[in-house]
């Protein structure tokens, strides 16, 4: 019988959308995660899209996706009773995750120093836009603001239009996933020493990872990279090199590499084009083993680009990708949600999970685990909680009677 690595560990998850994913990952690894919402429900339940487009806090697909593998209670931690209950929960917990503005927990008397007195082994993970201290620590943020301040925004989009973000918010997912790793580091230390600690995560720094080597063009060469749309920035020659190409029914991802990395792909693509009568003497004459994108002139590249574009436009995404697979070359589709849903590789690896939603009387399809672990397989054991769904169960575990719960509900504590 396999066992999940973090089975038997308890997480109190106070986060909003800035930190959902952290608790989700700890839940995936086997923790019992208790999502704590304000009475009436977390405002993040208003984030769309919604099940059957019904804008109901119990039907947010965003909530579903990142709060699976969690139980849910409501608790007003600003009230005196709420604080006491929270402290009781902390006594038995291993992790607390929160994403309030810096200082908020401290002001309630629930900061790290208080929590560690109750439970020295507790790990408190705080996820904030810029970290707990520093000149921007109290700045207001959003996905768009974070994407701008981590440096990625400036590098994305068409040169004649404003810098642009990925249309589905990403920054908080970087923050949440980063927090999960850093929390695991603290956990490993706690398991070997018994000592808990405070993990202070900056979303700006987490999202910075998505700029890769770009910032160092400034540091080493004093060059400011610019957004280049479907083209590629950062080439030494300044040649505008295409990465995204239109095809018959959508777009293709095909960044041309030179040298050893690209030789096989380029040769086989050229042969394939030739077979279909879409090459020319110039393309046939290129020695792909020595072809170097770092040396190519704009004139040569423009000529090649015209031929390749014409070829792609004569084919569908599906035709190009399946032939690329047969030829073992690097031509990929620009997938839409539909393409991903129908992808053969994901299907073969049984990626998609069916998760029961009894309240909707159906099961929904979810993306599967990011890692297949041979001994400790990761999956979704329960759907995201409804508002206060596990109040009775969890407060009973804590020793509160049904009568207590009635009083606390009337008082607006739960």
């Amino acid at each position, binding site marked *: 019988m396999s066992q999940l690595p973090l089975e038997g560990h308890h997480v109190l998850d106070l986060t909003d959308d800035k930190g959902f994913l952290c608790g989700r990952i700890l839940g995936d690894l086997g923790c019992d995660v208790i999502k704590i919402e304000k009475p009436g429900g977390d405002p993040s339940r208003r984030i769309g899209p919604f099940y059957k487009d019904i804008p109901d806090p119990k039907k947010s697909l965003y909530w579903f996706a990142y709060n699976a593998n969690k139980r849910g209670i409501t608790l007003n931690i600003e009230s005196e009773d709420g604080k006491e209950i929270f402290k009781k929960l902390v006594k038995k917990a291993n992790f607390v995750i929160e994403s309030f503005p810096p200082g908020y927990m401290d002001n309630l008397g629930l900061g790290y120093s208080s929590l560690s007195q109750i439970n020295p082994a507790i790990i408190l993970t705080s996820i904030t836009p810029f970290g707990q201290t520093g000149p921007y620590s109290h700045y207001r943020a959003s996905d768009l603001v974070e994407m701008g301040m981590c440096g990625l925004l400036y590098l994305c989009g068409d040169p004649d239009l404003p810098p642009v973000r990925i249309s589905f918010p990403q920054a908080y997912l970087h923050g949440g996933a980063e927090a999960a790793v850093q929390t695991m580091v603290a956990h490993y230390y706690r398991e070997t020493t018994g000592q808990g600690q405070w993990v202070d995560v900056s979303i700006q720094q987490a999202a910075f*990872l998505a700029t890769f080597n770009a910032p160092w063009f*400034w540091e080493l060469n004093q060059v400011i990279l610019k957004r280049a749309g479907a083209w590629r920035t950062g080439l030494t020659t300044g040649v505008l090199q295409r990465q995204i190409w239109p095809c018959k029914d959508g777009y293709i991802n095909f960044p041309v590499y030179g040298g050893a990395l690209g030789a096989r792909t380029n040769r086989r693509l050229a042969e394939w084009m030739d077979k279909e009568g879409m090459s020319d003497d110039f393309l046939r004459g290129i020695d792909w083993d020595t072809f170097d994108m770092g040396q190519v002139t704009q004139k040569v590249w423009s000529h090649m680009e015209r031929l390749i574009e014409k070829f792609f436009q004569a084919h569908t995404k599906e035709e190009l990708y399946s032939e690329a697979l047969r030829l073992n070359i690097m031509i990929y589709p620009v*997938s839409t*949600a539909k393409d991903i*849903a129908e992808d053969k590789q994901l299907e073969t690896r049984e990626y998609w999970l069916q998760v029961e939603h009894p309240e909707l009387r159906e099961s929904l399809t979810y993306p599967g685990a990011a890692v297949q672990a041979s001994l400790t397989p990761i999956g979704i054991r329960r759907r995201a909680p409804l508002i206060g769904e596990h109040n009775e169960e969890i407060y009973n575990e804590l020793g509160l009677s049904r009568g207590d719960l009635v009083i606390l509900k009337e008082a607006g504590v739960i």
Partner: protein
Amino acid sequence: MAKVFEGVKVLDFTWAGVGPITTKYLADYGATVVRVESKTRPCILRTTPPYKDAVPGVDRAAYFAIYSPNKYSVTINMNHPKGIELVKRLITWADVVAESFTTGVMEKWGLSYEEIKKIKPDIIMYRTNMQGHSGPCCSLPGTGVNLVGLTGFAHLCGWSDRLPSQPYGPYTDSIAPRFGAAVLIAALDYRRRTGKGQLLDMSQFEAGVNFLAPLMLDYFVNQRVADRVGNYCPYTAPHNAYRCRGQDRWCTIAVGSNDDWQSFCRVIGNPSWTGDGKFSTILGRKENELELDRLVEGWTIKHSAEEVMALMQVGGVATGIVETIQDLFQDPQLKHRNHFWVMNHKEMGPFPHLGQAAVLSETPAQPRMPSPCLGEHNEYVCREILGMPEAEFDQLLVEGVFD
């Protein structure tokens, strides 16, 4: 200062983005990480610009160095029988073997999980590649730049009336390492308690789709295929990047609630257009968003991005500079957080390595060693880590076991 992974040993065959970023967590928190590299086929990060002073060289590439502080580098000739033998000795030493090749490469060297397990029964093998080690596409070559297409991020980046924009770089390489490292640390903890190692297989495609999970649910439930919509937000406005004074300078403004809108109007001095009925409600602002954006930009263009951010933040509106790569090195918050670890690199001199995105109160990550030059630690790893006699090391050197 305590090191979390003191005594944890990692034999690291990974290359390109995902693997090295994953093992960076272990190295920065105190594990001994030995990168197995090759001079004949150096890691692509060592052969990608930018280079120090724009002079190419495997020890001058930032891309490799930023992810490699606190790591050792050995160059082993994997085509030499004694090279494989040396690797097998290192496997006996290691707790984790990490690799990120396409399916078949480790197998060709006789280093499949089954084989490695025979050498070290409790080994954790962490494998990551584009699409996992099973299924029809497991051997398809590619990079994270291709995966940006396959996972849907390219389709979702840009403006609805334009071609998709490729987000800079191998975007999914910034996603996969988080999932990978969390599971890898969990596996280390599991092994510490149970004595059992295991095989971890991470598909970067599968990890990447997790960052779009609600959109996949939207497709399965509502049959909606999400499209790129620029910087627009479905339920609020103004919400965009706006041109500021100067050369290609921009700031973001994200007005959420009606209170935010009131604050925004106050900051720009309540010009008469803000009182127009067209903009007083959220529905009105969404309906007239293009016009609203022009009016907002009419104000921002008169100010520097820094001024816009300072004024708006004082007024309580979420706003930020759209930082260029130059701005990032001057960002006072990143400085305050010690985001860059400047250490003296052997070939590049003082060089800002990438730090960690979190501060751990008891066990902060520490810069201990600059990124290694290619093969810098061949002798150290053999002599100090494996305890090899000098004569034996010299013999291996002569026989060409090091690449």
